[in-house]
């Protein structure tokens, strides 16, 4: 086991990936000075990491270059040809920045946690590494390892700091995702061991490899199940409401903001890039599943009494747009899907944060018990309304642009006939009507009226500066995407073109 430098550059990405978990493990060796010190230490690490990432991407990344950049390639296990191979392109830069941003804010949101705070913060940092690692790995097996690395912190966070039914949901989560990972591992090994004696795990080489159609479809299904669990795609979504319902809100922010996006990222990165034939065979099914998911989750959501579960179903519903965007195989649709990944990352995280903080105050989970908390907590009310509006795709906010672009992706798609296109657009648009029904009735049940206002000796505190800071700093990018989406689109637009050119070359050959 030895390392070989193949790049002349400073290993930026390795540092970015390893730094959080390394610094996090130092928490245990720090002199025990109480929770306060741990918190500040973690926050500093997060901010430092975010600054480092931003600096690297500003100065060492050319956004107009669709190729992989900042490549690092160290041989790790020789006989298996396993490399520590990292690199980023336009597709992964958005999710990585999102990860940095959301994790920093989630750490800030986890301020009130006092029980076992050292372990908690270590787990947050470990997750940070795992997520950035999986977004930036260029080796299939490394991708798998990073994918697994981030499961364990989530499991522990869930089972130790969750609500009443935390063990049930943590077990459900780990079984679901580990079950999905089996398929991922099978897919990884299958793709890696195919065709030659040497296992090939490099993304670049794999992207040019072609398989027999049946085998490709099998691989596709394997990967798809793994990512469908994570995304989630119906009917593999039931872990999500339970997990979100029980987890602490800072964990929820990470789950909704980043973890779900890993599934979508994997779909683009592996299913679209490595298995284009199978993807074009499956894309109509993806569209159908996505459309069903939008309607299904949006109509399940109003039936939920639990506030967090309702939001969880709303994010399941919004994931449908990503799937449709991926399935449309158009430039526009894929761009929309990537934009939706980013914008829903912000919005979903913010909604869970707000739900969690208001739960902390009123100590009620069920919506029909709440009411009238707008009077004591006007700031939470304001932020909650704003983010509900963002989530129901109000123009001027991120969600709208992403969904609109996905809509364009469908109607400009060459692959589908007129009638299916009309049908899918029509059904998707019904989701537009259903979304405000559950979101607004949620906000009505929580804030409007005067029910809890008359409760004796209530002492609800409004947002303090820390919470206000967290929600405003999520709100600004959401509005930013809504007003000037070109900035985020410009990151991914070239890469998307490269991915899609595969499809057109293939169809040309056929």
């Amino acid at each position, binding site marked *: 086991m030895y390392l070989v430098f193949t790049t002349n550059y400073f290993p930026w990405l390795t540092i970015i990936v390893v730094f959080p978990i390394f610094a996090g493990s130092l928490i245990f060796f720090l002199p025990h000075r109480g929770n306060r010190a741990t918190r500040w230490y973690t926050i500093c690490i997060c901010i430092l990491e975010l600054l480092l990432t931003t600096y690297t991407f500003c100065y060492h990344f050319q956004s107009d270059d669709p190729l992989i950049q900042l490549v690092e390639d160290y041989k790790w296990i020789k006989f298996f040809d396993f490399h520590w191979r990292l690199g980023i392109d336009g597709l992964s830069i958005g999710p990585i920045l999102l990860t940095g941003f959301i994790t920093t804010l989630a750490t800030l949101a986890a301020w009130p946690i006092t029980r076992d705070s050292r372990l908690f913060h270590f787990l947050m940092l470990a997750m940070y590494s795992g997520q950035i690692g999986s977004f930036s790995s260029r080796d299939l097996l490394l991708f798998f390892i990073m994918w697994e690395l981030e499961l364990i912190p989530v499991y522990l966070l869930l089972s130790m700091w969750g609500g009443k039914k935390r063990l049930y949901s943590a*077990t*459900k989560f780990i*079984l*679901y995702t580990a079950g999905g990972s089996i398929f991922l591992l099978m897919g990884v090994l299958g793709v890696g061991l195919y065709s030659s004696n040497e296992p090939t795990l490099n993304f670049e080489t794999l992207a040019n490899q072609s398989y027999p159609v049946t085998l490709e479809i099998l691989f596709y299904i394997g990967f798809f199940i793994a990512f469908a669990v994570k995304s989630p795609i*119906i*009917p593999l*979504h*039931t*872990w999500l409401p339970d997990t979100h319902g029980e987890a602490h809100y800072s964990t929820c922010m990470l789950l909704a903001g980043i973890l779900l996006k890993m599934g979508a990222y994997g779909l683009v990165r592996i299913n679209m890039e490595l298995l284009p034939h199978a993807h074009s065979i499956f894309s109509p099914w993806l569209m159908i599943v996505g459309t069903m998911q939008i309607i299904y989750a949006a*109509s*399940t*959501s*109003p*039936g*939920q009494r639990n506030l967090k579960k309702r939001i969880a179903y709303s994010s399941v519903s919004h994931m449908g747009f990503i799937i449709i965007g991926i399935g449309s195989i*158009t*430039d*526009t649709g894929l*761009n929309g899907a990537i934009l939706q990944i980013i914008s829903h990352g912000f919005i979903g995280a913010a909604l869970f944060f707000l739900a969690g903080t208001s739960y902390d105050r009123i100590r009620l989970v069920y919506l029909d018990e709440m009411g*009238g908390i*707008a009077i004591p907590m006007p*700031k939470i*009310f*304001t932020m909650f*309304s704003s983010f509900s*509006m963002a989530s129901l795709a*109000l*123009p*001027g906010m991120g969600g*709208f*642009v992403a969904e609109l*672009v996905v*809509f*364009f992706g469908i*109607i*400009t798609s060459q692959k589908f006939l007129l009638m299916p296109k009309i049908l899918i*657009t*029509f059904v998707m*648009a*019904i989701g*537009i*009507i*259903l979304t*405000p*029904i559950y979101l*607004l*009735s949620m906000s*009505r049940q929580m*804030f*409007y*009226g*005067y029910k809890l*206002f008359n409760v004796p000796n209530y002492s609800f505190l409004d947002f303090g500066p820390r919470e*206000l800071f967290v929600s*405003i700093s999520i709100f600004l990018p959401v509005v930013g995407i809504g007003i000037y*989406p*070109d900035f985020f*689109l410009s990151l991914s*637009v070239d890469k998307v*073109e490269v991915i899609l050119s595969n499809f057109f070359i293939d169809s040309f050959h056929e």
Partner: protein
Amino acid sequence: MEHTYQYAWIIPFAPLPVPVLIGAGLLLFPRATKKLRRMWAFQSVLLLSIAMILSIDMSIQQINSSSIHQYVWSWIINNDFSLEFGYLIDPLTSIMSILITTVGIMVLIYSDNYMSHDQGYLRFFAYMSFFSTSMLGLVTSSNLIQIYIFWELVGMSSYLLIGFWFTRPLAANACQKAFVTNRVGDFGLLLGILGFYWITGSFEFRDLFEIFNNLIYNNEVNVLFVILCAVLLFAGAVAKSAQFPLHVWLPDAMEGPTPISALIHAATMVAAGIFLVARLLPLFIVIPYIMNLISLIGIITVFLGATLALAQKDIKRGLAYSTMSQLGYMMLALGMGSYRTALFHLITHAYSKALLFLGSGSVIHSMETVVGYSPDKSQNMVLMGGLTKYVPITKTSFLLGTLSLCGIPPLACFWSKDEILNDSWLYSPIFAIIAWFTAGLTAFYMFRIYLLTFEGHLNVHFQDYSGKKSTLFYSISIWGKAYSKTINKSVRLLTLLRMNSNEMTSFFSKKTYRIDENVRNIIRPFITINHFGNKNTYSYPYESDNTMLFPLLVLVLFTLFVGSIGISFNHERMALDILTKWLIPSINLLHQNSNNSLDWYEFLKDAIFSVSIAYFGIFIALFLYKPVYSSLQNVDLINLFFKSKVGSNRILWDKIINVIYDWSYNRGYIDAFYTTSLTGGIRGLAELTHFFDRRVIDGITNGVGVMSFFVGEGIKYVGGGRISSYLFLYLSYVSIFLLIYYFFYITF
């Protein structure tokens, strides 16, 4: 003055700093921001005035040169598609922006006083300015996507403003209802936009019209698909302008503060649907089916709105249904292709209705001191009456607004309504008859509102006149109960409404329930008054402050004179009226050949006819609602009149009245239908999917979990460490294997 157009983007964005700054201020420095109350109001008026001056300047140039200007910037560029952001200044835009800014300024000034004691004063101004921004953005949009964006933003500001008093459960329901209903329209609008983009490949209005006309001309498109898209596009307008199937949100929207009702739900936002149809008229006009549909929806709304307005007891709801009916007139005019008339009515109606709403706000404001702050009481016309004495200025302006809406000559709405009615004759006689009839109904219900509010004596203090408590019920029996049999007959006449309880039960079994409700509603004010009575401190309504009266008076001026822009004075020299001159580049279907030179004789004939219908409506209203107890002679007269009638005739009359009353009181049963079918349906669907999700999808997962648990337990039991069981298992497997082997060996 070419360069003025380059600064037209200021118009929509001028009021934007106010909501941004107030929002940031309230979140970050709430205390400091709240101290500056008046400052913010001043700012918002100032910024809106800038927008007004710009748009007036723009429209003066428009009248002189009648040109269209467009500027665009790119917003999203991609390889496949690009979205642009820009503004289009044409006559329609400048008319709308003048309308929005003038009414907006008046309403802002008005609400400074109206909301002065409200805790959400700043929030209110922030919302209002945000609304102005988005509405101005809507009218200056240069493409359909931009229209959609501002369309939604306008809907959101309406949502926020309807739910402004969020502690009221009714307001909470109303704002959600408004948003969701509008979202249904937006759903259609979005699909329609996408459909037309698919057909033509453009969002830009002028390109769209050009390409589309070429396609139609060359017969290159699927007609059914085009009609579908156009219907979907029209659905957006239907929802926003409260047309027939999607009108349910408008009356409920009256839960918001009254200035909002004046600005958003009477003058500007509800006109957005009309604006959209007017904007897209070149598109619709080539599809005859759509034009027919538009006029059909228009005429249905005209009639429905008028009938529903007949028996509302809430003053604002009555006005809201009247708005709906008038919007129907505009839609009808658009459907008939008379673009100019529709816009003319849009302008005149906006000013008159804003005046009426602000007047009603003033009335409510003065009633609130007497009956308390519940909208049940302060907006209830039952408790009003005789306000002339207390609020003379409000009364005068309200009367002028009422007369204008009824279509009495020199006032604004007369001119425009008359034109619509005339055009309807040219279009279809059946529609024309309905439209004329509704003009009469309009006069009737408007005067009913006016008379109940301002004439007679203040019903709240009715016990002053007799000293008995029961008489309070007498005054209230207008609304359904006749407790005092002695004056039963006069009550019967007074009301058009609900009569003896024993008569009622014969019609609908539901009624008894409603009576209970009425009793409950009415007992509350009764109790309050009792309280007052004990203290012997009667308070009386008082006239509002000057800040509230000033906008009223300005709007009175508008109502008096705005009609003149549409009157063609000297037809012989072919000098057209200002409005026509303004709208030269736009189309006019019906008057293509007539050169718009109205014949004075024809004009007079029609005008006399329409005015007489209006007077007839007013007369009936006077007859029915003239307060009896103010002049006893009148009662006798009416009684005489009715005693002369045959008894059976009267029962029939009562029946008809009851049916009308029920229809109107229950809002035509449409709301109830929606509640049961749609809301119930969605709730049922939610329950069903939730059940499916919980039991089936999750059930499988949990089932697998439980099963594996049992399997594990079973294995644990078997593998409990006993050698004998291991041996047993081992031997049994070996024997099974041997058995199979043996069988195979034998067979082969």
